[in-house]
């Protein structure tokens, strides 16, 4: 068995630009004894990824490491390349975010698992047949069909890719598994499957687990100890329960509060954030009875190679003025298709009825353009939905230009940026997306929608790719927009906590159908449908250590 310990580790990225050297990690000491589980939480830029990459000496050449990283008592800096190669994967392996690009897109996943075996034969899997057998055994262990061995990454869902990553990490029977955001971008159900699978495997073999995530609840579900990092420094360390439930440091409290506990009345319609958006109307708008958008018996089908697939089946929805409706479901449940068809971007089946402000949705290009002025869409990834070469002003003004609104363009842009709480707005006009933080980018996207003074915002996972603290800011902005401008919003998400934080009503979607629909307080406090119950049960809770086994 192997211990991993970081002794006063500092990591600096040398840079020849004006910014000078960047300190990514400063003076961190952590211990991971054999068989232990440790979670490191922090937001982007906290240095947590840099720290774990140093454990296998995977940092780029521009990084300088001070202090010692000890693996099984040996300083990894002193190992030769041949020795470090032997350590990689055989003693410590890494589970990356499989949902993204951590698998080679042009090789069969089974062969990628076998590749690890070929490099660390260990005298056990000496022949190709034995390696193949071992690979199939690994697929069994992570609950994947053996036939998936010959699949390519693009043929698998996010959860399946993550299972492949875990199978690959287990391949050479490592003593330590390092998991880097293993469930980010997965929905709660799949997240729970992955986490429980990981927790079981680790407990069964006495493997030690080092996991990093921005989500305290996820970490506390699996790890016995938690470390909190910020700006490269370790701010808090201790047993999971204590860190989550009785945090000592202000920053940990903030992180812990960023993810709402469903059922906790304090966070209902009140996303926790240090920078809440301002409500400046004396009588804030509240959900009214005036119906803005109505869908009746809405169905959408696609032609796929497997035949005609019904992505949305007979959905009835009503969105009132100043109502925030959360459509919740797993990936593949048809919620994005639903949003697209509400925008008139998707052909619907005959018999479907869609009405905006009482009249049917237009079909002609010109009328659709006018309609889209009133309904705006916000996408998940602000880095992807903003043109990297255009300034903030150009990004926001584009909608006005497309809609042919020529008067007071500058004032409208400033107004929209201020409504999105980018103040003073004039400071941001010339910035390009690269110079902005994730939260600021999402605000620019929202401002682009607001510039057209829409009556309805449709947002597809607006906070899924944002840090915990930024998440609260953006959610509070949505609430403020509703209260100040009387705007309605339909928010698509897999995050039930988001619904609890800001939505008035919630619709739970499964396989294209709405299985439960009603007021948030009713549905989430007393779910009737078993699928809603299952979704709720899958949400990780702070400090519950639901998946940790103490044997």
């Amino acid at each position: 068995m192997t211990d991993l310990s970081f002794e006063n580790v500092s990591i600096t990225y040398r840079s020849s630009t004006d910014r000078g050297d960047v300190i990514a990690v400063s003076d961190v000491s952590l211990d991971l004894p054999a068989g232990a589980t440790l979670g490191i939480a922090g937001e982007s830029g906290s240095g947590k990824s840099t720290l774990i990459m140093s454990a296998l000496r995977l940092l780029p050449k521009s990084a300088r490491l001070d202090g010692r990283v000890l693996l099984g008592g040996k300083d990894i800096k002193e190992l030769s390349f041949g020795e470090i190669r032997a350590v990689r994967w055989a003693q410590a392996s890494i589970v990356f975010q499989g949902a993204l690009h951590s698998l080679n897109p042009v090789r069969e996943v089974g062969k990628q698992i076998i590749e690890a075996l070929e490099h660390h034969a260990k005298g056990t899997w000496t022949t190709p047949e034995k390696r193949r057998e071992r690979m199939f055994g690994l697929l069994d262990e992570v609950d994947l069909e053996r036939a998936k061995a010959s699949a390519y990454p693009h043929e698998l869902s996010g959860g399946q890719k993550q299972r492949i990553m875990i199978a690959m990490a287990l391949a050479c029977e490592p003593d330590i598994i390092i998991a880097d955001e293993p469930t980010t971008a997965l929905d709660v159900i799949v997240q729970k499957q992955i986490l429980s699978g990981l927790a079981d495997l680790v407990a069964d073999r006495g493997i030690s687990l080092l996991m990093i995530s921005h989500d305290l609840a996820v970490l506390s579900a699996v790890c016995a100890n938690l470390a909190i990092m910020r700006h490269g420094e370790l701010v808090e360390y201790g047993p999971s329960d204590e860190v989550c439930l009785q945090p000592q440091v202000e920053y940990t409290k903030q992180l812990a509060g960023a993810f709402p506990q469903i059922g906790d009345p304090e966070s209902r319609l009140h996303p926790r954030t240090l920078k809440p958006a301002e409500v400046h109307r004396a009588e804030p708008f509240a959900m009214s009875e005036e119906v803005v958008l109505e869908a009746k018996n809405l169905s959408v089908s696609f032609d796929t190679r497997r035949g005609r697939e019904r992505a949305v089946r007979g959905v009835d929805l009503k969105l009132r003025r100043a109502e925030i409706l959360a459509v919740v479901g797993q990936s593949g449940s048809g919620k994005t298709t639903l949003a697209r068809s509400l925008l008139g971007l998707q052909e619907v089946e005959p018999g479907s009825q869609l009405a905006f402000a009482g009249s049917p949705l237009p079909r002609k290009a010109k009328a659709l353009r006018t309609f889209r002025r009133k309904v705006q869409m916000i996408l998940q990834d602000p880095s992807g939905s903003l043109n990297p070469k255009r300034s903030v002003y150009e990004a926001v003004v584009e909608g006005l230009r497309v809609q042919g609104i020529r008067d007071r363009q500058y004032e409208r842009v400033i107004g929209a940026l201020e409504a999105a709480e980018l103040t003073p707005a004039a400071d941001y006009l010339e910035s390009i997306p690269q110079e902005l933080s994730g939260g600021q980018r999402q605000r620019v996207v929202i401002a682009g929608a607001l510039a057209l003074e829409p009556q309805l915002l449709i947002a597809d996972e607006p906070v899924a790719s944002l840090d915990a603290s930024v998440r609260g800011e953006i959610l509070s902005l949505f609430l403020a927009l509703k209260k100040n401008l009387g705007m309605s919003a339909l928010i698509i998400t897999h995050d039930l906590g988001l619904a609890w934080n800001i939505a008035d009503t919630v619709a739970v979607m499964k396989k294209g159908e709405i299985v439960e629909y009603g007021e948030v307080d009713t549905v989430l406090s007393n779910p009737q449908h078993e699928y809603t119950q299952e979704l709720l049960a899958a949400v990780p809770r702070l400090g519950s250590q639901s998946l940790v086994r103490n044997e």
Partner: protein
Amino acid sequence: MSTPTHDDPQPGESRPEDPRPGDPAAPDASPENSTAASAPGSVGTADMDEPPAGGSFARYLLGKIGGAATSMVLVILLGFFAFRMLPGDPVLKIAKERPMSPAQIAELYRQYGLDKPVIVQFWDYLVGIVTGDLGESYVYRKSVSSLIGDYLGPTLLLTATAAVIAIALGLWLGQLSAWRRNSLFDKLASSTSLVFWSVPTFWLGLILLMIFGGTLQWLPTGGMITPGLDPWSPAGIIDVIKHLILPVISLVAVVYAQFLMVMRASLLEEMNEDYLTTARAKGLNEDEVRRRHAVPNALLPTVTVVFLHIGGLIAGAVTVEAVFSWPGLGKLTFEAIRGPDLPLLQGTFVVFSAIIILMNLAADIVYRFLDPRVRRA
């Protein structure tokens, strides 16, 4: 040691027995099977988020062949009508060169079939193409098919040799340059290739000819083989290779830069991808990471460019053939234009176009084998 996870159900978690792969009792993977209650464990068999499977190869191939056939039909149409619009009447040109009576001229028109209505000529042309008879050259007085047959071989020999060398050299230098970005090797390889790239082919050909053919007299100055030698005898083969060296060098030197640049750029794009970190973490050394993971991915965009440029290489061979008096299609086309020798022009045009269309078809097929993602298209 390997305890299957499903043997240890967690308290408070509904995790049904997973259908084991290979278990005869396991239900078939169909979406209907996974009800809400069984969803968590059965994700391996029915995952609602799983992308649809790809289409069959035969269907893809048929689609691509259909596309190529359509292009070919258009080329055949163009081949007939475009050359009918060229200025200059071939019969009058011949009549100008030697005295001919109006009766003889009419006889020539009849012989060439130019007296018939255009639609009939077009029909004859179509029938000819289908039966492989491309008509008779006005100038050479030989069948166009046999002329092209005689000249196609040398052109293919020249361009195929040059293409193989240029592609291999360009891709190899390109991936090394990208991997050692900003090193001395990278700077030297890139800048040298660009210098050659900006040199005109004929100029380089002439310089090489002057130095190695003229001053040093190491290599022959023109043609494909010394007259009188049997090309299939050992001495003949060596002689052909000697004749081949200079034209191939001129062709390769000018074009390999584009392969180098494309390969370098696409490998640079792959170099920050996460799957390379995965490969490194697995214990592969840098060479293996490059050869097994980075290069296969970087090859994808490169392949398209490479096949597109092979067509250009054949066109580029025309000037080289002229400089080195290489008896190839380029030389034949050049003479056909001077006629205008309509049947010969049509023939070479159709053959050149067919080669380029075939190359694109080959690119599509190769791409499908290289990139599994295309298999869904």
